[in-house]
Structures are given as structure tokens and as C-alpha cells.
């Protein structure tokens, strides 16, 4: 009874109770550091009120993220297809349980409730879709090649390596899922620069993957201004591919010019359907192995 009273007493004064506001930090290597730059930008609601001070990520954050991607890449690419599928499925399960939270957050960022609901459900279903490809795309896109000489020869896809992803600006959650999932299910690790207007959803998604057995460094999430990352990400010598779908013409050109520094693969996801194994294949390399047949 005493406890109940105590709660009642607290809630009785709830009208005057101060909210505990959340600090949104970035997500690198399975941890939530502040941006190394110490900079922030104010995220505002439709009425112009500040909702949060969001990390304005920097070049140094990107570098740290790529180091962590590289460290995580070998282990992640060697995980079994079954294991990777289960981790993706687990992310979907966790998201399903936090639907209400995500709808709230997306509404804070300007979504209508109905649209937020449609988007989160589509995002969960897309996760399940790609989880299912994990142990299938290699079968579908591999080949045993009937060479003329006496050799056993086969070709199969392997991850390209580290992928930098510019997530679409107009989607809070679906853009992250549709751009990051095909990349990681193929054994790559990635760093996401997320939608400027939807950093809260992105960081709450980081909390979801943090709680879903996805190893640190497989997905790193940086919030901030996209334009500050175009040149740095595309000229980073340890990034193997760049994925985008809505960069402007000039940014696209910058990315493509810089990509030539280390022959990065440049992938435009807008040319491929949201749910498609060809999204996975665009960040894959085909390896062909020969071995003699005989004694």
C-alpha cells in the first residue's frame, strides 16, 4: 500500500514534473559517443520549437567509423548465412515490439501517425524479406563454369568490403532499412549518414540493433549534414563502395570523381526496386576459383 501511495503521490505532482529529455548521440563501433567535433544542430518541430540538439558529425567521426567497419568486416563476412539471417530477423522482432515508440518519435519529426505506422510496418517486413535472402542469394547468383580444360571452376559472390551509405532524406526509418540491410546481409559493413530531418529515429534504430546481437561496427550511424560528408566519404581510401539514391547532380559528380581515387564502386539504389536481391548483388564481388581435376 505504501508503495502504491508513493507512486500516486509522485504522479499527483506529475503535472509539474519535469520531463527527462534524451540526449541523442551517434553510434560507432557498438557504442554511443558524442561527435568528436563537439558540434550540434538544433532539430525543430513544425512550430519551430527545438526538440533536440543533434550531433553534427564530422570527418573524424567518419574516419573512426571506417576503422571500426574494417575491424568488424572479417568476422561479419565469415558469419554463417543462417546466423546473419537470424540477426536480421531479431532486429525485425525488436522493432515490432517498439512500434509505438517509433511512431511517437517519427511524429515528433513531422510524420502523420498513419504514415509513420505504414512506414514502420513496411520497414519491418523489408527486414524479414532480406533476412530470407541471406542463405539464398549466393545460390542464385553463383555458377559452376564448364571450362574446356580439366579443371573444377566455380564463381560465387563475396562482400565488396566497407560501404558508405547516404540514406534517403525523406524517410525516417524505411530509408535506413532499404539501404543498409541489403549491404550488410551480403557480408559488408557500413557507415550510414542518415536523414538530416530524422536523426532521432535513426539513433533509436541504433538502439534497436544494439539490442539485437548485431556486432559493433557492422552498422555505424552518423547524424549531421550530408553535404559535409560527400567529399570525405567518397575520397576515403579504405571505403570500397558508396551507396546513395537521392544525392543531387553535383554531389553525385563529386562522389564519382573521388571514387576513382581507389576505384570505388558507386551504386545508385534508386535504379533498383526496394526489395530486390540485385540490391545485395550491387555490393558484391564475384570470385572465381580454379582447381585441377585428376590424381
Amino acid at each position: 500500500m505504501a508503495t502504491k501511495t508513493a507512486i500516486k503521490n509522485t504522479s499527483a505532482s506529475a503535472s509539474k514534473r519535469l520531463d527527462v529529455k534524451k540526449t541523442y548521440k551517434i553510434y560507432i563501433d557498438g557504442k554511443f559517443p558524442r561527435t568528436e567535433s563537439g558540434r550540434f544542430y538544433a532539430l525543430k518541430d513544425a512550430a519551430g520549437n527545438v526538440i533536440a540538439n543533434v550531433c553534427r558529425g564530422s570527418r573524424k567521426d567518419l574516419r573512426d567509423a571506417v576503422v571500426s567497419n574494417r575491424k568488424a568486416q572479417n568476422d561479419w563476412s565469415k558469419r554463417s548465412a543462417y546466423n546473419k539471417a537470424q540477426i536480421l530477423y531479431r532486429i525485425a522482432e525488436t522493432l515490432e515490439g517498439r512500434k509505438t515508440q517509433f511512431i511517437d518519435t517519427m511524429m515528433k519529426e513531422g510524420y502523420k501517425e498513419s504514415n509513420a505506422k505504414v512506414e514502420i510496418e513496411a520497414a519491418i517486413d523489408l527486414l524479414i524479406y532480406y533476412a530470407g535472402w541471406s542463405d539464398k542469394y549466393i545460390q542464385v547468383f553463383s555458377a559452376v563454369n564448364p571450362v574446356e580444360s580439366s579443371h573444377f571452376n566455380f564463381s560465387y559472390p563475396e562482400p565488396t568490403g566497407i560501404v558508405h551509405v547516404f540514406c534517403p532524406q525523406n524517410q525516417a526509418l524505411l530509408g535506413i532499412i532499404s539501404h543498409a540491410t541489403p549491404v550488410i546481409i551480403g557480408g559488408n559493413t557500413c557507415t550510414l549518414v542518415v536523414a538530416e530531418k530524422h536523426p532521432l529515429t535513426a539513433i533509436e534504430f541504433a538502439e534497436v540493433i544494439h539490442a539485437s546481437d548485431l556486432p559493433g561496427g557492422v552498422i555505424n550511424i552518423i547524424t549531421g549534414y550530408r553535404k559535409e560528408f560527400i567529399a570525405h566519404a567518397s575520397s576515403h581510401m579504405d571505403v570500397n563502395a558508396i551507396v546513395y539514391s537521392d544525392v543531387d547532380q553535383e554531389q553525385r559528380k563529386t562522389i564519382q570523381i573521388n571514387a576513382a581515387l581507389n576505384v570505388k564502386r558507386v551504386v545508385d539504389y534508386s535504379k533498383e526496386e526496394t526489395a530486390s536481391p540485385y540490391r545485395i548483388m550491387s555490393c558484391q564481388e564475384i570470385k572465381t576459383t580454379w582447381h585441377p581435376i585428376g590424381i
Partner: protein
Amino acid sequence: MKKKSATKDLKFDTKWTYAPAPESADHIQLKEKYDLFINGKFTAPSSKKYFDTINPATEKKIASIAEANAADVDKAVTAARTAQQKVWSKISAAERGKYIYRIARIMQEKARELAIIESIDGGKPIRESRDIDVPLAAAHFFYNAGWADKLEYAFPGKKTAPVGVAGQIIPWNFPLLMAAWKIAPALAAGNTVVLKPAETTPLTALKLAEILQEADLPPGVVNIITGAGATGAAIVNHPGIDKIAFTGSTDVGKIIQKSLAGTDKKYTLELGGKAANIIFEDAAIDQAVEGIVNGIFFNQGHVCCAGSRLFVQEGIAKEVIRKLKDRIQTLIVGDPLDKNTDIGAINSKAQLRKIKSLVQIGIKEGGECWQSDCDVPSKGFWFRPTLFTNVAQSSTIVQEEIFGPVLAIQTFRTVEEVIEKANNTPYGLSGGIWTDKGSKAFQVSSKLRAGVIWANTYNKFDPTSPFGGYKESGVGREGGLHGLSPYLKLY
């Protein structure tokens, strides 16, 4: 004392010498002057300029070759576009395939002539052009021909359409093979082509143009224009080109990738390499030695996937290096047309200069240089097979592609160490593994970051087998099913 004599170098050339066995070249047909092959006809260049193609084994001129300028490139692209829209896309896929089969057949009929011209113009031993380059080139046409009416089975869930006009720029190390490798899938997928062979080796591509005429391939479907870097740049930058396929150096590949920035042109790049050839203690050593020799001295080492970095496990290093030197001593360097020749002429004076300068750098940086003491002819461009020991990961000759008969040898102790060393390069085209243990071969092959892995073999090629690199060795694949997608729009 006895022991000392047992380790003395084997002298295979003291007992007997090989009598010359030159391939007769009197039946080949070459013109003194070659024009540009545009819209089905040989056409004089608007530049009015011609350059010489020479025989690198004799330094004598073989023929005058037209130099295409931007106006010529424009003519070729226009012809290709018209042919694509009005002819090639209108005929049925099965008929398209039949044209490509025809080309393969005529190439087989003329195989001997093509092989001789390839060796005269490029310097490669006739044994290689006869047994590898030309038969493989014909096989590429034969393989791809069959795809023309079966593309709907190649890409699950997708329909296909041709990309349009393909601009193709090929190197001098496998002139005819590269032409076939590029043209055959492009045609099978329904595209038309503007192809530029390398300026030092244009002849077999021009002979191929004659074959295309003989096959009645509709005018403009394939255009072959000659010239150097400026001609290539004009192709890359022409707005009427839908797709670029380039094989060549990583430096030029990067320039091309950069100049395509901001356009909607598709591209594939087959670039340089610095492949690790790894010999484990449990390997069949004599086979491995053959594999090392084939890996680095095939085609004078002018091979992007050459096994130019040898990694030998410490316990067998002495034995492998001794056997390797003995074997290299027996290699015959000389007349490309002689059927006994193992290593032919270096393709050009410029390439010879580059090889020499990198070898000098290797010596300057402290590498121990060993060369075969075989005879080489007095005229022409030659380089003796060369080994380097005492080199480090950071040595220039370990990092840079030499594109010549020069092998850098390093040793290692553990599997983890050699994987780390093998992958410590910006390149990722190919790699070799020699071991009798299957599980080890699979482990290492899956950890090498390279597009083609040869286990207990090296430098094998086939039209059904995709080829292409990771990292700075290129983008995309050529050959096999995977080599079709760069020439198709999937929707």
C-alpha cells in the same frame, strides 16, 4: 667437396642446343597500310595521319596504321548507333547468335594466320598465340553466340535489353583475345561496338575486321578504329557512347572512371594486378615450380594477373628457389616465331624501358637480383627472366606492377601471415595457392581478396569463367554468365 658439386647449377644447355624451328610466315596476308574500319568499310582517317606498327623482335616496320581523331570517332559512333537502332536490334536474337557463331568459325579457319600475325606484331611466342590466344578468342565468340537468344534465363526475375553502343579500349598484351573478349558478349547482348586496339598491336584486330566483312556482319555493328591515348579519350568522352569497357593500367582506368563522373555511361574496368602466388610446404614442389614459371613468365610477364609476388613457406624456400633457378636457366628467350621459344620479345621499347627502370629501383632498394644467363638476340626488345630475393613488403618492386618477366620472392611462416601479406596491396585481381591439403586451399582462397584464384594451377582462362578484380584491379566481370550483365539493362 662432393656436396658442393651436387649443388652446382644444372647446365642444360651444355650438352645440346635446340635447332631453330621457326613457323613459316610466308602464307600470311598483310597489307602495307590499314585504314579505319567504320560502317563495314576500311575508310581513310580524317586526320590523314598514319603511324607505324613494328615487329618488336626485329624493330622493323610491318605496316602503316591510320590514326583516328575525334571526327573519326564520331563517324564510328554514329555508324554504331545507326546500326544498333536500324539493324542489330531488329533482327531476331537467334539470327544475331548465328552471326557470332560464323565469326568464331572463320577465326578457327584462319587460326594459323592470326597466330603468326599476333606473334609478329606483339612479340609473344608462337606456342602461346597458337595454343592459347587464338583458340580462346574463337571460343569466346562461340560461347557468347549461344547466349544471344537465351538472355532471359541469365538474370532471374529480370527482363533484359541492350545498353546501346559500347566503346571498348583494349591493351597490347592479348590483342586478339581482348578484342574477342569484349566484342562477343557485347554483340550477343544486342549492342553495337566501337573498339580501339592498342597502338603497338593493331594488326589482329584489323584482321578481325576483315573476318567480320567475310561473315557479312551488317555494316556498323562493329567498328574498329586505331590510334593511341587521344583516340581512346575521344571514345570515352563521346556523348553517343552508352558503355565503356576498358582493359589496361590502373592509372588509365582511374582517369577513365574520373572522366565518366556525372554521366550515365556504364563502365567495366579490368585493371592492373600484383598477384600473390603462395607455395605451402605441403605442395607438390615440382608442379609448383612449373606453376611459378607459368605464372610470371607467360607472355613475357605482360599479364595483368601474373603471379608476380611469390610467397614460399620458409621450410622449403631454399629448395624452391634452387629448383626455380634451374628451371629458369632452361627457358629459351628469342624469336617469337620459333616453336621452341618460351619467352618472346618485350612488346615495345617503352615497356622495356619501364621494366629496366623498375629492376634498377629494385636493386637500389637492396633487393638481390638474379637473372638467367641465356642468350638474347642483338636486335629487338628483350629481357631475361629475373628473380628478386631479399625484398620487403614496402619494396617498390613488390608494390608496383612491373608487367615484365620479373618475380619478387618473399618467405612466410604461417597461413595467417601469408594471407595478411598477400592482401597488403591496393590490387586484387588474382592469386595462386599451391598445397596438397584441400581444406587449406579452400581457407586461403576464401580469404584472398582477389577475383580469380588458381589453386594448384595458374594463368588458366576460359570463356565460361568470369574474370575481373577486387579493389583497384577493376570494376565488373568479363566472361561467363557474370560477364553479360555489364552489356545489358536489367529491368
